[in-house]
């Protein structure tokens, strides 16, 4: 199976890319949540700020400085589709979606579970929940 998640994330630290925005030097949590909701096409209220903080921290550690900020600003300015045409930022968006869908993040010491039944993947199967639950409970 080609990619591992680790190699995938390592590939995000690549050459600098031009941007058309003046980006903020820090990604705010609310901006990250808005970006996540847009990419996942779910209501903002569906996403836990507690989980978001964990995912944001993990992605910051792996991504090139400025890339996350660029995506957040692109989302705010309704130019997300344009930003996603650039391969490295598209891969970053994919990593963000993976985190929300799997409920796990890659850390230096390995994969860590952040969310169980709240992982977005289980929304796709309305009658089911992850192992270790009785229909999600």
């Amino acid at each position, binding site marked *: 199976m080609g990619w591992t998640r680790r190699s995938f994330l390592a590939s995000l630290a690549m050459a600098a890319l031009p941007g058309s925005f003046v980006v903020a030097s820090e990604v705010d949590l609310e901006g990250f949540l808005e970006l996540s909701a847009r990419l996942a*096409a779910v209501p903002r209220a569906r996403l836990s700020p507690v989980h978001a903080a964990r995912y944001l921290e993990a992605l910051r550690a792996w991504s090139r400085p400025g890339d996350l900020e660029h995506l957040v600003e692109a989302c705010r300015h309704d130019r997300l589709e344009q930003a996603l045409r650039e391969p490295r930022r598209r891969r970053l968006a994919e990593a963000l979606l993976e985190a929300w*869908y*799997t409920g796990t993040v890659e850390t230096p010491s390995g994969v860590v579970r952040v969310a169980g039944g709240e992982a977005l*993947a289980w929304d*796709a*199967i309305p009658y089911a*929940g*992850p192992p*270790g639950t*009785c229909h999600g409970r």
Partner: protein
Amino acid sequence: MDADVAIVGSGVAGALLGWRLASAGARVLLLEAGGPVDRARALARFQASPDRALDSPYPESARVGAPSAGDLARHYVQEGPDFLSGLYLRLVGGTTWHWLGTALRMLPEDFGLRSRHGVGEDWPLGYGDLEPWYGRAEDALGVAGDSGNDLGSPRSSPYPMPPHRPARVDGVVGAAAARLGWTVDPLPQARNSRPWEGRPACCGAASCTPLCPIGAKYDASVHVRRAVAAGAELRTGAVVHRLGVGAGGRIERVCWTGPSGPGEARAGVVVVAAHAVETPRLLLASRNPRNPSGVANSSGLVGRCLMAGNAVLSQALAPVRVDPYGAPQATSGMLGFREGPFRSGRSGFLLAIATDGWADGAPDRLAPRLIRRGLRGKALRAALEEHVRRQVALASTCEDLPDPENRIELAEDHPDAFGIPRPRIRYRIPDWTRAGQAAARAVHEQLFEALGAQERGHATAADPGYLLGTCRMGTEPATSVVTSDLRAHDHPNLYLLGSMVFPTAGSAPPTLTVAALALRLAGLLGA
């Protein structure tokens, strides 16, 4: 004497025996290497685990010396040529914590494999000797099944509970099977189909392994509690490492080390019910001047004839929704492939229909693959739903053959944390079993073809729930370790209880047969 009966191991074998003997008034000492399981804490550990391995709720088991799903070479010293992937737990209640719960009897033909098919061995007892005890075991565990369908194993008593409703996938696969002239039958399960003896009914969420969140699936902690309530003494953290032998070959002492500190006990009768790896490990480690090859080992067969579970796992996408994750983890199977003239040349197999989709196809495992194909938003969710809801998976476990070269020895150069030699494994999958795996794969492919399924894949894999044969029963001391009553040929007060005594494996999961043997032994010992 410290006890009338000392039992080493608190899995289903030791728990049932201890319960029956204590209830009959015997002083029972139940020795367990591991500790008790707190279901809520174990569940929390599993839910927090990134890989959701079979033993991820039970990290404490590996600490007292047991195989870990994530590192099978840490406890086993694997000499090959094939890798042994059998798992067991050293905890109060034993391996039933993470068993699937399929409670199937062996076939009458399984007890006469040599005389019927010219391979393997014959048991020194027949299905008829064990049949009444199967019924009592089904009552004790709480087995749900169809009493009007004996599945090839005649029965004299009904199941205590009605069968579970088949899963949707069972009907879809069943229709395809019918076009091929095959039938799908309900699998009897030690999983409540209605509230039973203080435990709830199963909610049908395919969360049976590695532990049932609500206790609807049987685990042997049920009978450990009943044994203690009946007066048995349970000592945990007691890693039994030596049996002391006295005059006349009697087992005089049971010695332990471990988290609870060293200790020993004397009992009139000693029963080792420590599963198929730890039992021979203990017997071999107990060698002494009277028994230089190990306790109970005048035949040289302690540790030999190791049998394991070798399976074929197949998956495909059905053309219609089959809705996995909506039923217990295995409700139906195809049982007609277990017996026939073919067994002279290849193994039979038990085909189970998985109700929890693909092994690597759970929504949170499949999602990354879809995301990397460029899907997101509603399209991602729709693709995920459509794929998961059409996943079909079949698992066929093939029978192993007893080969004396497949064995457990002591790895003196690899002691564990307590200084006890770890088990050295020499194992090769028999050609007879490999031929069975090829036949199983062909059946899976035919079913997928009849189903019109796409994205088909097949793989051989281990079924970790099968470890058997390492202290087999027989009539002759030169070719067996215990009698048909499970008493060691060499020692008048030593009994061995569990899957280690099976002369042949059959293709049924061993747990119900182990439970039947336990209740039968209790009867033989006066309970």
